[in-house]
């Protein structure tokens, strides 16, 4: 893909690309990974604490408690996005705040807020899944293929 693009360019453009690449600041991979590890881990600890409150104090069965925990984390994320904190966290933590489910909610809430000026139907309704949509599309396609493969290799699974 990148090579194809490169071939279409004039020699001057190619020279510029090489120059730009040389001066691109190296990404501090290790530091970013440490940040992502700590923030991602902390978000999971918060999730674990919420889940423990649901299972131990409110005596909700574990499956429902896990679902309720995800919904609660999403609500927290949307609130933090609304007051502008989550996006600041995202700039610092990178994947640490993007990979947890809170990042999924953040991408939806920030897209909804950002496109509000285009109206509620075309802006909020149409653009909300701008980033989250790819997660749902690829997740669904992969899940159906995986489940179908299971059925093919384990035909007795169905109905049993």
């Amino acid at each position, binding site marked *: 893909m990148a090579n194809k693009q490169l071939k279409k360019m004039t020699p001057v453009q190619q020279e510029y690309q090489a120059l730009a690449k040389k001066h691109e600041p190296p990404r501090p991979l290790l530091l970013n990974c440490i940040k992502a590890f700590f923030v991602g881990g902390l978000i999971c600890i918060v999730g674990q604490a919420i889940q423990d409150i649901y299972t131990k104090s409110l005596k909700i069965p574990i499956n429902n408690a896990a679902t309720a925990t995800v919904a609660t984390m999403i609500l927290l994320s949307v609130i933090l996005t609304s007051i502008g904190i989550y996006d600041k966290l995202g700039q610092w933590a990178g994947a640490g705040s993007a990979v947890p489910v809170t990042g999924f909610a953040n991408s939806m809430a920030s897209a909804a807020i950002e496109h509000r000026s285009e109206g509620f139907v075309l802006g909020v309704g149409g653009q909300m899944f701008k980033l989250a949509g790819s997660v749902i599309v690829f997740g669904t396609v992969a*899940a159906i293929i995986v489940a179908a493969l299971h059925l093919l290799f384990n035909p007795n699974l169905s109905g049993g």
Partner: protein
Amino acid sequence: MTQYIWAFIIGGLICVIGQIMMDGFKLTPAHTMATLVVLGAITDGLGLYEPLIKFAGAGATIPITSFGNSLVHGAMQELKESGWVGLMTGVFKLTSAGITAAIFFSFFAALFVKPKG
């Protein structure tokens, strides 16, 4: 207490995988998330995600990989109960709460919050 330590470590490690994909392989965040969801679905297909959840709790259920896991799980559950149609009716069974919550809360955020700039 050990549950919290493992939640921190496993959850953190999944985020590090995402960070390496973004920085090391120069993927966009959208590509990273889509890849992680597919990885979660495949891991569940191999039967490895449930043990990880038992072991790490929220460390495995909070990262987006668990979304792929839940999609497969819902599809399989319905597949067992109602056959091939279950593939279609079951996919969003377990993730419905998460998606619904995200849509609903995001809509209200857009109602009440003014965009910056």
